[in-house]
């Protein structure tokens, strides 16, 4: 397995528990799509969920609860909703995500383009696909809020290491980095971001108003 960077263990547990907001869920699901490793972690966490559920002190239901549900067992199930059609041609995304609406590419900063994904319900986290030119250097930045990144193609490096397809990067206010994009190929990533980027340094002060993320 060449994937070196994974979501944190609490994040994987929170995913399995259904506790992530949908934007974060999308970022973790994108990583899981290519990471058998973390899929096993999710299964382990779900087994724990089952064990914990079994161990909970029961909360009694109404006396007639079983009778009422038995009356409904013969009801036909609602037909499943038709399978959504995949509209995105971006590889490496889980299929549920490919059926959502993707906005057109738009320039964000020099050598950087983004494509927003319209999630079907409101979430505090925005999700978009980011494309950076090969060999470019992103500005030193910190985060207000946090940023989850899953690489789909190409790669980048910062002081946290090298990130290639499937790798998962977590940026929060404690992290300040200046990623440089691998040579030879566009770097395409899925990004889930809460809050906004804060660019540092004089150049950051100058370009901040022009960076729309």
């Amino acid at each position, binding site marked *: 397995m060449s994937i070196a960077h994974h979501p944190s263990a609490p994040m994987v*547990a929170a995913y399995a528990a259904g506790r992530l907001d949908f934007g974060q869920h999308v970022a973790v699901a994108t990583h899981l799509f290519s990471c058998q490793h973390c*899929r*096993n972690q999710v299964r*382990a966490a*779900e087994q724990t969920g089952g064990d914990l*559920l079994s161990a909970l002190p029961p909360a009694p239901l109404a006396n007639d609860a079983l009778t009422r549900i038995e009356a*409904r067992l013969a009801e036909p199930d609602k037909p499943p909703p038709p399978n959504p059609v995949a509209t995105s041609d971006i590889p490496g995304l*889980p299929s549920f995500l490919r059926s959502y609406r993707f906005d057109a590419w738009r320039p964000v900063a020099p050598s950087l383009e983004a494509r927003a994904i319209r999630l079907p319900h409101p979430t505090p986290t925005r999700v978009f696909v980011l494309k950076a030119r090969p060999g470019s250097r992103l500005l030193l930045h910190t985060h207000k809020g946090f940023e989850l990144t899953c690489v789909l193609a190409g790669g980048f490096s910062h002081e946290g290491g090298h990130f290639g397809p499937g790798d998962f990067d977590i940026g929060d206010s404690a992290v300040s980095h200046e990623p440089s994009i691998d040579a030879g190929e566009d770097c395409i990533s899925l990004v889930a971001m809460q809050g906004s980027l804060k660019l540092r340094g004089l150049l950051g002060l100058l370009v901040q108003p022009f960076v729309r993320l």
Partner: protein
Amino acid sequence: MGSIRDAGRQDWAAHLAAVAMHADRAAFASLFAFFAPRIKAFMRRTGESDAQAEELAQEAMLTVWRKAALFDPATTGAAAWIFTIARNLRIDAQRRARRDGAGATPAATEEFEIDDAPLPDIQLAAAQSSAQVRSALAQLSPEQIRVVEMSFFEEKPHTEIAEALSIPIGTVKSRLRLAMKRLRSLLGEET
């Protein structure tokens, strides 16, 4: 203790199989008696009202009845499978409650189906790992279990988990990381 739990797990799997194959109402009644009040307790703990928790427990059991044929004992435990049903229904309920009027929201179930084109050996790997996962879980310290438990069942962010256990947030993260790392090595994978 482990063997009693395993016996219990086997038992529920057989009940689910009876529901799937013969629409066995007695088996369903046993499943209902054990799981419905625990699903209700789970919903209560995650902040649902008593009425809503009762409603969701009913809905979850109806889903168990209808989808029993999809349960695959080779890849997951019965309780874990029922847990994922309850989890998805809870997400759907929260979305309905928060919906801003713009049409129906898709069901969460599909969003957890992550390997839509599974490689042939994934199913096998999953079956092999579930036993290892269980033995790995048995070796977690009570404190580690507690941290996982809090992220499962209580509406608490990690900062509050740290406060409740009076340990610094970095420790919560590193303990969970350690626990997961141990899991990974027990699963025979490189980290």
